[in-house]
């Protein structure tokens, strides 16, 4: 019936939960489940990506372990969710990247950082690495830097879009017009506010049955930190090409105004999420994906940290090596984006859009393979 055991277990749980329904007020997963009586792989992938892992259904469930019914929705859906990233990844040849994701990303990052250091050293006199000129583009001409990063981010975008399309088609999103403007707007609001990472209103659960709202806060810091950093890079590029106004920029210029708070968010947010992960009740963790989650948080953290470090050491001899590390990390971040935890945001958004559409249509989507 189902491709893997995680999907089988998810189907068993959805049958249990559909007979109970006590959790239907906690989040979007259970109302979406109630629209269905049987669950194809695509249905389960949709529900798994709709789940934010807030943990409320676990601590509220009278049948969670050690009960013999062994109902553990957050953990099971986390496993299905992680498997779904692999299933939909494009191109297929890169799907095994998800199997030992932490190691894979660490290797790509190490190679990338080494390549930048070596590149700088070979391109110029190795002494340039330790000069204190404060001029990034002496190490790497701006056009080369922009070209390289445009290429890798366009590739990441293409791969993510292809994966998302496969997901969107598989879950039958168009059967209930999930791509309509109103639906997408609803999904944008729900995603931007992390509406369903609130344990049904009191804050998500992590360590035990006492609610905290920390994970939502740290996720906001991470996400909005990333967006600010992205905005900083984009405005910098516009300044350069449109206004012919090259870096460095002053403290009151937009790239700095975006970049510094963004970098701080990218340092605190992932560190907080990592701390929460270490404190999380083991029943709700997916130990097999610890590497993937950790690698993602580490990449975000390193991006923020090395970015902030560059601001501090720019006019010192440490600038060259720091820039190489920063660019190496960012390059690796983009290169591995379609093949790591980063994609969760896209699938989550797609699932939220489908949920909004199902609510509006008051019927379930028809997945691609379902009669």
């Amino acid at each position: 019936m189902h491709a893997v055991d995680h999907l089988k277990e998810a189907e068993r749980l959805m049958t249990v939960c559909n007979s109970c329904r006590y959790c239907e007020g906690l989040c979007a997963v259970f109302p979406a489940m109630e629209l269905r009586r049987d669950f194809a792989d695509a249905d389960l992938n949709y529900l798994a990506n709709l789940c934010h892992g807030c943990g409320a259904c676990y601590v509220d469930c009278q049948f969670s372990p050690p009960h013999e019914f062994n109902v553990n929705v957050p953990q099971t859906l986390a496993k299905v969710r992680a498997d779904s990233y692999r299933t939909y990844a494009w191109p297929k040849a890169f799907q095994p990247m998800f199997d030992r994701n932490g190691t894979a990303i660490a290797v790509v990052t190490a190679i990338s950082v080494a390549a930048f250091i070596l590149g700088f050293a070979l391109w110029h006199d190795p002494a340039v690495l330790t000069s204190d000129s404060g001029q990034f583009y002496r190490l790497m001409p701006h056009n080369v830097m922009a070209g390289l990063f445009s290429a890798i981010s366009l590739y990441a975008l293409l791969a993510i879009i292809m994966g998302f399309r496969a997901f969107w088609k598989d879950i039958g999103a168009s059967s209930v017009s999930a791509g309509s403007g109103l639906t997408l707007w609803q999904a944008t609001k729900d995603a931007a506010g992390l509406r369903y990472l609130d344990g049904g209103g009191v804050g998500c659960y992590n360590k035990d049955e006492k609610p905290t709202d920390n994970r939502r806060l740290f996720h906001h810091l991470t996400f909005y930190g990333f967006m600010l950093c992205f905005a900083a890079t984009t405005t910098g590029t516009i300044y350069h090409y449109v206004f012919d106004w090259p870096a460095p920029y002053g403290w009151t210029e937009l790239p700095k105004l975006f970049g510094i708070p963004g970098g701080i968010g990218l340092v605190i947010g992932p560190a907080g999420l990592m701390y929460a992960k270490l404190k999380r009740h083991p029943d709700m963790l997916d130990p097999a994906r610890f590497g993937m989650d950790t690698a993602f948080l580490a990449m975000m953290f390193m991006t923020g940290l090395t970015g902030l470090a560059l601001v501090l050491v720019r006019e010192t001899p440490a600038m060259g090596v720091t820039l190489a590390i920063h660019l190496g990390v960012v390059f690796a971040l983009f290169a591995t984006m379609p093949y790591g935890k980063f994609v969760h945001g896209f699938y989550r958004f797609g699932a939220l859009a489908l949920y909004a559409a199902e609510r509006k249509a008051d019927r379930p989507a028809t997945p691609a393979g379902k009669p």
Partner: protein
Amino acid sequence: MQVPPNEVDVLVIGGGNAALCAAIAARRGGASVLIVEAAPKFYRGGNTRHTRNMRCAHDAATDHLTGPYGEDEFWDDLYRVTEGHTDEDLARYMIAQSKDILPWIAQQGVRFQPSLGGTLSLGRTNSFFLGGGRAMLNALYLTAERLGVKVIYDAPVVSLDIHNGVFRSATLRTNGTDYTVRAKSLVAAAGGFEANIEWLKEGWGEPADNFLIRGTPYNRGDVLKILLDNGVLPIGDPTQCHAVAIDARAPKFDGGIITRLDCVVFGIVVNRNAERFYNEGEDFWPKRYAIWGRLVAAQPGQIAYIVFDAKSLRMFMPSLFPPVQANSLAELALKLDLPADSFLKTVTEFNAAVRPGTFDHTELDDCRTEGLALQKSHWARRIDQAPFYAYPVRPGITFTYLGTRVDRDARMQMANGGKAENMFAAGEIMAGNVLGRGYAAGIGMTIGSVFGRIAGERAAQNARG
């Protein structure tokens, strides 16, 4: 390791809704409070873990209630379900108090939501807990612990020191050690004895071995027994319990809500001999589900089979186990281990007796049988469309009625006529005062919260002199 204090103001025995409401009220009343719960932490709360709503009177619609539910209407409902087996004074007092309990319980951190999917009929009368009964319990425990109430799990009470209606101390057993705790007041909120099969046998005989218990194995009634042995006045029929028909494949204990089956009205129900034994279409299911546990308990082997066909499969709430499925009635009989000839005869006779009508499960429709010794008076449709389905069912025991007699103060009454000096009771252990028979959804929680709060307040007043 958990070591109980030697002495507290108020000792609360039990860990469910009534116990927590009592503990919180007593603590807010200025008393030091210890809760001793027989179950380990995961199973704390007895039947409360499996509840989902409470029935409280209210004057107007709210965010989660669709309309008003007045005290008189509540009383009429209670009188009807108990067939008059209730203490009117106490019941009306509880109903009046239930109006205040809804905001009170919300102040203790419990959150509500509109009625769940599939329970529209309760949307006006019953307040549903967001996340269900265990979520409600978690909120109450959190509040109690914040207030400084101490809780000890896995600590069944083995004896009580009671003299002439005066409670002095309780001995509890935890980690293999007995501890004696003195207290100025006792609140007994330790539930009924539905998980105590030996006790059930006193009323039901050997058939009780085939009963399934819907709640935890910790509802053994030990505290109730000790109290009655120490001269507390009993109330309620000692031989009776609330029983519904649940999936026979459910575990012996704690199968909870998901083993219930709502499909009796869509088919026929036969016993081990493949004979029908009751009118399946007598009335709407919410008005009849509570009699089927008793009906099945009276059948040989305490087992029965709900049989229906493809037409009805999607017409009721899903449940944990899939139905037994077969492509012919003969195959179904084989799978159910029923005498095939008798089974085919029963279904054939039933099918032949079905009169034409317009099927509508939302009203008392005109689909009925004619000419059978035992008719099906509504929703009768021929069982003729493969695949055919069946659910095996057994009696599922929810709660027991025997308890301790109390007054408006939740104070226990003594068999020799007086009142207990410092002993109070709340919840299922005294539900029989109000609910002598039958059941109405959510009323057990109302009894628990209202009398729990009263018991806690009085126990604190008592302790502080």
